[in-house]
C-alpha cells in the first residue's frame, strides 16, 4: 500500500517517464525498419519484421517504466527526507539552549548533508547495495557455426 506522499511523488514524475521510454523504443524500431527497407523489404514487411525482431513491445515498455519510476521515486523520497532531517536539525540547533540537545541537531544536519552528498555521487545508487537477485531477461539464440555461415 503506497503512502499518500509516495503517491504524490510518483504522480509528479508520471508524465515524463512513459513518454521517454516510448520515444526510446520507437527509435529502435524505426532504425530496424530502416535497415530492413534498405535490404529491399516493402514498408509493411519491414515494419512487421522490425516488431518481430524487437519482441513484446508493450511488456518491455512496462518493465522499463516500472524500473524508472521505482528508481526515481526512491531518489525523490531520499532527497525529501534529507531536506526534512536537515531542517529539523537546524530548528533544534536554533531553538535549543541545552548543549546536549543542540548536539542532536548537529548530528541530524550531518546525517542529512552526508546522505545528500551520497546521492550526488554517481554510482553510489542505493540499489547498488541490494543483492542482485533480479533476473535479467536474457534471451539468446545460439546458432551453430554452420547455420551462421548459411545465413
Amino acid at each position: 500500500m503506497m503512502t499518500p506522499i509516495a503517491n504524490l511523488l510518483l504522480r509528479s514524475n508520471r508524465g515524463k517517464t512513459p513518454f521517454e521510454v516510448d520515444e526510446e523504443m520507437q527509435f529502435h524500431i524505426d532504425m530496424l525498419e530502416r535497415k530492413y527497407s534498405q535490404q529491399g523489404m516493402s514498408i509493411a514487411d519491414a515494419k512487421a519484421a522490425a516488431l518481430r525482431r524487437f519482441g513484446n513491445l508493450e511488456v518491455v515498455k512496462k518493465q522499463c517504466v516500472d524500473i524508472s519510476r521505482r528508481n526515481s521515486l526512491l531518489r525523490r523520497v531520499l532527497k525529501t527526507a534529507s531536506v526534512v532531517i536537515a531542517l529539523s536539525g537546524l530548528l533544534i540547533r536554533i531553538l535549543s539552549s541545552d548543549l546536549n540537545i543542540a548536539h542532536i541537531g548537529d548530528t541530524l544536519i550531518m546525517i542529512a548533508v552526508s546522505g545528500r552528498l551520497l546521492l550526488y555521487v554517481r554510482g553510489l545508487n542505493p540499489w547498488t547495495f541490494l543483492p542482485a537477485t533480479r533476473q535479467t531477461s536474457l534471451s539468446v539464440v545460439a546458432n551453430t557455426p554452420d547455420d551462421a555461415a548459411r545465413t
Partner: protein
Amino acid sequence: MANERTDLMQGTLELLILNTLARESMHGYGIVQRIHEAAEDLLKVEDGSLYPALYRMEERGLIKSEWGLSENNRRAKFYKLTRTGKRKLESERANWNRIAKAVTRILQAT
C-alpha cells in the same frame, strides 16, 4: 534455419553490454548491432530484452544515460559506463575468463 535456443548464464547480457559500452557511449540499437557484429551472428540478443537490462544497470549505477542526437539526427538516449561500471566490467571479465577456463579444462579432461 535450425536454431538452438539457449539461455546463457545470468549476467552474460550485462557483461556484453558493459563490454560494448567500454569504448564509447551508444544508444540501445547501436549496442545490439555491435553485439551481433562482434558475435558474427553466432549469438542473437532479442532486441527488446536489452532495455530492461539497461534500465536495471542504470538503476544500479553501472551506466548512465543522456539524450543526444543519433547519426541520422534523431533524438536518442545514449548510455555510457560509470566508474562503477568500469570496475564491474573488469571483475566480470576476469570472472568469465576463470569460469570459461575451468569448464574447458573439465570438458577436455573427460
